[in-house]
Every structure is written in C-alpha cells, then in structure tokens.
C-alpha cells in the first residue's frame, strides 16, 4: 500500500522543528510501524538525507523505549499496544499518518521523535524501591501474599515506563506512571514499611519535574499499552493524603 507520512523533524533541542512530508509506495500490511520507518530511513539514507531518529529497542512491547504520537494518539490507533506492536494492517492504502514525538515540558525533544524521559528515572530514585540490601532477605515463602494481592501488585508493576500516559494526558501528567509504582509497593507487605515517605517523596519529585496535575480524564489509562488502571491513581491520592496527615515529617 501507499502511505503518506508527516513526520516531526527537529535537529536538536535548541532548534525549531517542523512536520516534513514523505511518501512510501511499497508498504506491506504485515510490516510493523517501526519497520515502515526502517524502510523510510533506508531510502532516506540512500538519497543522502538524514534518517529519522526515534527510540526503540525490544520491538516487542516490553522495554518501553518506543514512543511515537501517531495520528493524534500515543502509540497510535491500537489500544493496549506500543508503537512497536502496531502493524501497518491498522492503516489503509493512501492514508496520511502524522507522527510526532511525546510532548511535555518534562520530556524535552532530543532529536526528531526522540525525547528525554530521564524524569521518570529520577522519580523512581526518589522512592520507588524497597530498602533492602543484597543478602539480607529472609526466605521468600515466609512472606505470605494472597494471590489476589499479588495479582493486583503485578497489574501495577506491569508498567513499562514508556510515558504514553504523559503524552496522552491533556495536562502532561505523570500520575499513572507514578501511581503504578506507589500502588504496587503499597499493596505488598514488603513495601509497606516505607509507604508514607515513598508517597510523599515520589509526588514531590513528580511535581519538581514539571508534569501537570491530574484532571482524571482517563486518557492515560486508555492509551497505556499495559492498560494500567485508574484505581492506582486513587490509591496514590489516598496514600499521599494519608501520609501527609499522619507522617511526622513537618518539613513538608
């Protein structure tokens, strides 16, 4: 099939970008979306034009590296899937596809479709862990965790840190990402002892990174490739409020 592309091209963070038109004539519907970009890049390179820069690695929907805003939606039209899991059979012959990078103050563009998501790492560093040193663990089966609890924790832990929630949110809010981690560790007994500081610190870091607030539009959860539930946002709100009211941290 024939595909018309409008791709965001931006040399680096200090220069302005723009949408550039490209045409591809021989797109197979079995191609993945990123393979279509490979084909584009191959032809650009042969013509001596700079290929399009985009993040990707595993190409099977788990590393969270790929990140394209396709035809007005984070990771494209398919729900429950990443950009790399999108295939060209989701499009029709002659379609025009607009491809942009994630847009958020906290995710500056590095080049073309590639953005800097290190804000997510800093949020995890602020408290997204259980403080346990290597070697000091007791036998795994001494901590009993009912299956339903383990399942719920796993639902939250499934987040791949792709940032589609931020990209899709009208406020560029990172609530779904942050809450998935806060919630996972709050549900599990292992994470319970630090749950107050964790909620306080991770929310503070989230705000410091310049993400927006939550308007609860639900866009994040719909566009999340792992369909992380809004329940976790509610739990984080609860955790945070509870922590603020009951913790002994008076400094804020």
């Amino acid at each position: 099939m024939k595909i018309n592309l409008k791709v965001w091209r931006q040399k680096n963070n200090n220069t302005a970008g723009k949408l550039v038109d490209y045409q591809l004539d021989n797109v197979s519907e079995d191609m993945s979306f990123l393979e279509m970009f490979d084909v584009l890049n191959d032809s650009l390179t042969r013509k001596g034009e700079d290929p399009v820069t985009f993040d990707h690695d595993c190409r099977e929907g788990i590393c969270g590296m790929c990140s394209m805003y396709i035809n007005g939606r984070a990771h494209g039209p398919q729900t429950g899937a990443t950009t790399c899991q999108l295939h060209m059979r989701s499009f029709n012959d002659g379609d025009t596809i607009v491809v942009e990078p994630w847009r958020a103050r906290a995710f500056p563009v590095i080049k073309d479709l590639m953005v800097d998501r290190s804000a997510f790492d800093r949020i995890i560093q602020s408290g997204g862990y259980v403080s346990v040193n290597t070697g000091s663990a007791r036998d795994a089966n001494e901590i009993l965790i009912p299956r339903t609890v383990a399942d719920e924790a796993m639902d939250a832990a499934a987040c791949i840190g792709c940032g589609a929630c931020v990209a899709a949110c009208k406020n560029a809010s990172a609530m779904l990402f942050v809450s998935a981690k806060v919630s996972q560790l709050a549900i599990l007994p292992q994470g319970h002892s630090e749950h107050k500081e964790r909620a306080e610190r991770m929310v503070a870091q989230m705000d410091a990174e310049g993400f927006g607030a939550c308007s609860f539009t639900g866009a994040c959860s719909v566009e999340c490739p792992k369909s992380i539930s809004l329940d976790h946002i509610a739990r984080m709100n609860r955790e945070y409020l509870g922590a603020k009211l009951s913790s002994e941290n008076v400094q804020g």
Partner: protein
Amino acid sequence: MAWVTQTLSSSLGRKVIMSLTGLFLSTFLIVHMAGNLQLFKGDGGRAFNEYTYFMTHNPVIMTVSYLLYTSILVHALMAFVLTRHNQASRPVKYAYSKPEANSDWSSRNMGILGTILLLFIIIHMRTFWYEMHFGSVPMAEYDGKQYKNLYAVVQVAFGEWWYVLLYVVCMGALGYHLAHGFQSGFQSLGVRHKKYTPLIEALGKYFFAIIIPLAFAAMPIYVFLQVHHII
C-alpha cells in the same frame, strides 16, 4: 507548618482543594435547588419569599453561606492556578491530536465549563443576591410581617427571554461540569472502590449532571411562561 503549605501547593493537594470545594458546592446545589422549588408552588411567591427570609436571617445558614462564597472563590482561583500549570506542562502543542478517542469532552474542558459557571454565578449574584442585600427590593407583607419580595425580582428577571436562555445554557454547562466533576472529586480524595464507585458515578451522571441542572433550568422557564401568561 511547612508541611501544610507544601501539601496544599502540591499537584495532589491542589486537587484536594478543588475536590473539597467542588463537592461542597455540589451539596449546596441540592439545598439551593430544594429551596428554590418553592417557586413552583403557585402561591404568588409567598413560600419563596419566606424561604428567602429564613436563608438570610438564620445564623447557621449565614455562616455556611460565607463558607460558600469562599468555596467559590477558592475553587475558581485554584481552577485558574491548576489550568495554567497544566497548560504550561505542555509548552509545545501537538500539531494533530485526537483526544476524543480516549476521554470525554467534559473532562477536558472543565476550565471552560467552570469559566461559564463563574460568569453565571456573577450575573446570578448581581441579579438576586446584590439586589437582595444592597438594591431596592419591593416589600411584601404576609401575616402582618414584612418580607423583601425577591419573588418580584425573579419575575422581572425571568420575564426576559434572553435571561432565561442564558440560564438554560449555563445549566447545560453545570451539567457537563458535574458529569465529570462529581465523580472526579472522589477520585481526588482517593475514594475509589469496586462497590461504591459505580454508585458515585451514577449519582454524578444522573442526579448531579441531569436532574439538578434540569430542575434549575425549569425554574426560569416556568416563571417566564407564567409571567407571559402562557400557562
């Protein structure tokens, strides 16, 4: 007290303020609506005027009403702060975005809906509250007691078709604001439960987003029709 200011200025804290004030306003709407149902009595406004008298003289209600004004101000102010912050979180907009694929219109336009409501509240307060307190309202006498005849003011205002239309449109905005806002308020407080959230959602969707605005919209229409002797 650093923790208080810090909490309330965090993105979550701000939403808690929105939620508390918003939900408080929502409960006020019930009371307000119930009282105003007196308009439908067809008794020439007596019940309504007596109700108005009660509302402006009962010390408890008066305290609550100051809380109410504060809530409106805080809610609106916080709405402004949040909306600005949220917009600033995406300095470069998408060239092409299709948010209707993932979220409801009302949830994305709370700011616009709220602004309509704010304008409405200002006009509404100017017409009735200001007149009541500072204007020259004709008097009515029931059982030898003098009452401000706010009902007459209502008749004048709702006798104008454009004023009625304004009301109806604004109640539409209220419906949309609460269709999202009511249940969102609970989410902001972390109240979410498999059993109860569907109830809250239904309450928001049907009672707050449909019944309440309809009842409020019915009042000017009713009075208009009455004033013009259509019914």
